[in-house]
């Protein structure tokens, strides 16, 4: 089994409170029913951060790029290969409103 990083990008502001709560429930179902025991971890990210381009060129208090490009958080899952990881991610309800990028963690 390899580990895969799912990067959650973008943001979406158009939903009613009730819809948002429903989406949250649907995401929970995805974790319970699709990812199951292959869920490793996940976390949301703060919008602000520090960008170090070099030792002297330090930019603080981002965001540094447009909000649709911004990384909102990540999930790490286990999968046999990229194809399986992508299949799993295709089912992810976040895909309706966010872009998801799947990257394999290189086993070292």
């Amino acid at each position, binding site marked *: 089994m390899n580990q895969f990083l799912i990067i959650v990008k973008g943001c979406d502001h158009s939903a009613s*409170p009730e819809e948002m709560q429903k989406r*949250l429930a649907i995401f929970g179902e995805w974790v319970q029913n699709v990812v199951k025991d292959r869920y490793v971890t996940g976390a949301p990210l703060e919008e602000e951060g520090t960008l170090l381009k070099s030792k002297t060129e330090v930019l603080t208090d981002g965001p540094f790029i447009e909000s649709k490009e911004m990384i909102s*958080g990540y999930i790490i899952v286990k999968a046999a290969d990229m194809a399986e990881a992508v299949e799993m991610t295709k089912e992810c309800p976040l895909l309706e409103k966010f872009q998801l990028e799947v990257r394999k963690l290189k086993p070292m």
Partner: protein
Amino acid sequence: MSSKKPDARALVDHLFRHEAGRMVSILTRLFGIHNLELAEDVLQDTLHQALKDWSLGGIPENPSGWLMVVAKRKAINMIKRQRHLRNFAADMNALLKSEWTYSYTMDQVFLENEIKDSQLRMIFTCCHPALPAEAQVALTLKTLCGFSIHEIAAALLTSEDNIHKRLYRAKEKIRQEQIDFSVPSGQELFERLDAVLLVIYLLFNEGYQAAEDNLAIRKDLCLEAMRLAMLLTERPALAAYPRIHALLSLMCFHAARFDARVDSDDCLVILEEQDRSRWNKGLIAQGVEFLALSASGDTATAYHLEAAIAAEHCLAPNFGETNWIRIYDYYSALEKLKPTALIKLNLAIIKGKTDSPLAAIAALHALEKYKALEGYYLYYASLGEFYAQAGQRTEALGYFNRAKKLTKSAATKKVLDRKISGCQ
């Protein structure tokens, strides 16, 4: 770092919606009612962050508390960004704009009793008599109940465009008339409270009226109406007002029948055919309790009478044993307070139970002049029913067919078809 899997099933139903109402209220308390849109922006931003963070990081232990903390933080940022551009709530403007006092002020405003107080202010503002009734209902749903434009339109069976216009006009009016974000006091309190109760009553009726479109969200409307009325009872000065309890009682009795009113195909089931074992006994018991609480003071309002009628229906062991004589008396009293075509129609129908089919037929024909009944299937179905009972099948058949043309409900059509074949 949390590796706990998010489980949104842990959340209370409609948590986001109800917290939205609390958050918009307290944010409006800060920003001022003239900045309602600003409060709505901060709310949207907060809920969006919750969706993202809770999906990826798990549900926090205290979801409501989490939302309030984030809303407060976002409000502080908003105030910092906007303090040179606009004024906030008049009684807090200076405090919020000064570096020395804003933090203490924010802490004071975000206390639980202030949040409750803000919700009451919001109720009284949304139900201000200067706003047209339709706008009051839409604004209440938007701000206090966290409904989106789309959801309001679905619940009120109208277009989104219409709701947009109503909300826009309501907000304009609030600005023009400089309507205060406050709970009135003294004699004005009770006058304004009547306006609030009327909006809650309308809200409930919109959800309860016999139409089969969007049943789920219209049921939510009824639950929201009950929740708002409960909010009012939390303040002792208001809880002493008997008609609040009468209104709550009537809503409990109706809500008790909600599930039995709809069959497995989402079609409405008429009272006579409802499975009474599916009526919610807890709600009926609550209705009885509220009715007892409402029986103080010397005014029997329409709410009291309607609650009493609903109680008679809910407490009757079966349709046949309903106490029609008492219900007739309540309706007669109600007609004196509210001489509407619909109440007269009910009165005429009950005459068929307490007197004779012919008496009911005469009473029904006397209502022909009312425009409100002209296109109402129940009027013709009732005429058909009593003509059938009187043995006059040809007339009955004509009225049943006419009723059938006027209803869109598949279930009602089915009932009418049965009546029609009974006449042939």
